[in-house]
């Protein structure tokens, strides 16, 4: 267990950045996103959730699957084998870290997605426990502790004037050992402060509607009239899916340039009409109703049926960002009963 005074964090960034690519929540024009640290960057460790979730480090919004050229002969070049760089992701919140295991189930399940696997392995995650959850946070619905992040390599906790860092994996140990120069050993007093902070955070978490039993309840709700009303105000933008840490749908597109080109994979959204639009004209999800239903059914029924856990971590991004306030918290409340 190590610690560092918050006033000395810049030294930590500097040291980390000299070892590996360092990505932190950085504010630009008032919007906080994970971005590569540079001298003078406006790091914001107070912001609860970045605009874009950290999934982009393993599953980028756009990535090249392969390159091709066909001027003489067709030559294909696989890009997955070179995907990613060694990097440290600093400041992922516990809910965010919880989402990684859901993505792992998709991309590390057979057949393993090589690009994702490489990126995941090349990344060391330093999670940052939450001290002051927002009114829109509902990680409690999924039994995520806002102060703890079991899936992270290192857990950082803000104890007031200091950050306390606890390695939770070999990768984490290794990383912290590289930082001996700037870190101090933490004491048992610090350990207590961490526990204290974690407990306080948990206490501050708004009462969360329980998600238990939702999957079973939804089993029989595919044809329910609930969906007829719910979808009405959806404007079919892709905000909820893009900012969702667990959404992982993608599209594959060609980017040709003369006799060369790239095939890329990019985030897609089940909110868009063309997501399931078939070439012949048929669309199995013809209206926004089916699309909205798909999104919530996927998160709360299909995914848990396939993988044994809900595809939601209660980060609250969709609650805060949906232009029409149509979010999964509403669905959980509507179907899961009162808080």
């Amino acid at each position, binding site marked *: 267990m190590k610690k560092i005074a918050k006033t000395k964090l810049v030294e930590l960034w500097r040291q980390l950045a000299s070892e590996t690519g360092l990505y932190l929540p950085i504010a630009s024009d008032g919007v906080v996103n994970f971005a590569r640290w540079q001298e003078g960057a406006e790091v914001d460790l107070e912001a609860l959730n970045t605009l874009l979730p950290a999934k982009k480090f393993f599953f980028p919004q756009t990535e090249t699957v392969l390159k091709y050229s066909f001027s003489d002969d*067709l030559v294909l070049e696989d890009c997955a084998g070179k995907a990613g760089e060694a990097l440290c992701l600093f400041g992922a919140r516990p809910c965010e870290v919880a989402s990684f295991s859901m993505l792992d189930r998709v991309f590390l399940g057979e057949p*393993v997605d090589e690009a994702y696997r490489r990126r995941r392995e090349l990344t060391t995650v330093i999670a940052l426990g939450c001290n002051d959850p927002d009114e829109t946070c509902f990680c409690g619905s999924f039994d995520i502790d806002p102060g703890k992040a079991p899936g992270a390599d290192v857990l950082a906790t803000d104890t007031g004037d200091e950050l306390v860092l606890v390695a939770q994996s070999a990768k984490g140990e290794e990383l912290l050992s590289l930082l001996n120069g700037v870190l101090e050993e933490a004491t048992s007093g610090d350990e207590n402060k961490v526990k204290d902070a974690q407990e306080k955070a948990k206490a501050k978490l708004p009462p969360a509607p329980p998600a238990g039993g939702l999957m079973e309840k939804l089993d029989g709700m595919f044809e329910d009239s609930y969906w007829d009303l719910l979808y009405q105000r959806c404007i079919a933008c892709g905000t909820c899916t893009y900012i969702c840490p667990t959404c992982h*749908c993608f599209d594959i597109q*060609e980017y040709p340039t003369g006799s060369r080109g790239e095939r890329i994979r990019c985030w897609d959204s089940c909110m868009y009409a063309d997501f*399931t639009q*078939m070439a012949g004209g048929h669309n199995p999800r013809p209206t926004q109703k089916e699309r909205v239903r798909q999104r919530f059914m996927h998160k709360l029924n299909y995914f848990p049926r396939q993988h044994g856990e809900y595809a939601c971590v209660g980060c609250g991004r969709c609650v805060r960002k949906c232009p029409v306030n149509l979010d999964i918290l509403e669905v959980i409340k509507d179907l899961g009963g009162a808080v």
Partner: protein
Amino acid sequence: MGCQNPLFPRVVVVEEIRRETPDVKTFRVVAPDGGELFDYKPGQCAMLSLFPVGEALFSITSSPTRRGFLEFSIKETGMVTRALHEIEAGTKLGLRGPYGNSFPTELLKGKDLLFIGGGIALAPLRSLINYCLDNRDDYGRVDIIYGARSSKDLVQKVELFENWPRVRDTHVHLTVDVKSDDWDGNVGFVPAFLEQLNPSPEGKVTITCGPPIMIKFVLESLARMGYQPENIITTLEMKMKCGVGKCGRCNIGDKYVCKDGPVFSLAELQQMPNEF
């Protein structure tokens, strides 16, 4: 497999292109250096890439019993298929697969088989038909009911008219929607033709593929005729991008058509949400 990019295709060569109908062509692809492409089972699919246009999933219409090549019957519907229809033999394509489950060939053993197909959807059936006929002794009586819009829209004419009828205890029943001068066979839609033929469900499994509207009425007819949902097998079609159950668009409930399908029994379909 393990650490390979599942989205990365291998290069194959189009060895032969046969025109089946005004809007259907059959493409035979082979490995550039000869040799086998991959092992597969009837009913499985593969992704074909035409650079720089794009990639699409097609069911393999050849039978794994015929080695050294793969065949795809492709109807012109969208951008990729339109471009595929413009290529010539010798063109190199990308291929990845095989994907999806397959027809339950083991389960079908010893049974009488009733194939019901319409239009381009003979493609997946053809793989199974040839598989069964190549292992003729494993299966009972084979009936093939196949229909298309008109006589010129019937695919795989050589097999329909020449090859299959010659195989022992194999019966081909053809119908077209629209009469024409060169057609002296049955005229009428497949479901009606099926009821007219009225094959007994006794000891029979039926495998049916076709456009959604045909499937809808065929299933109704089969139910009327006493076929059990477990003995009715069909395939589904969805927009697909990855083929490996990750891109998230081809699911029906918690089943991914590309991975868990495309072959489903009616019994299974009845358990799934009605979203196809």
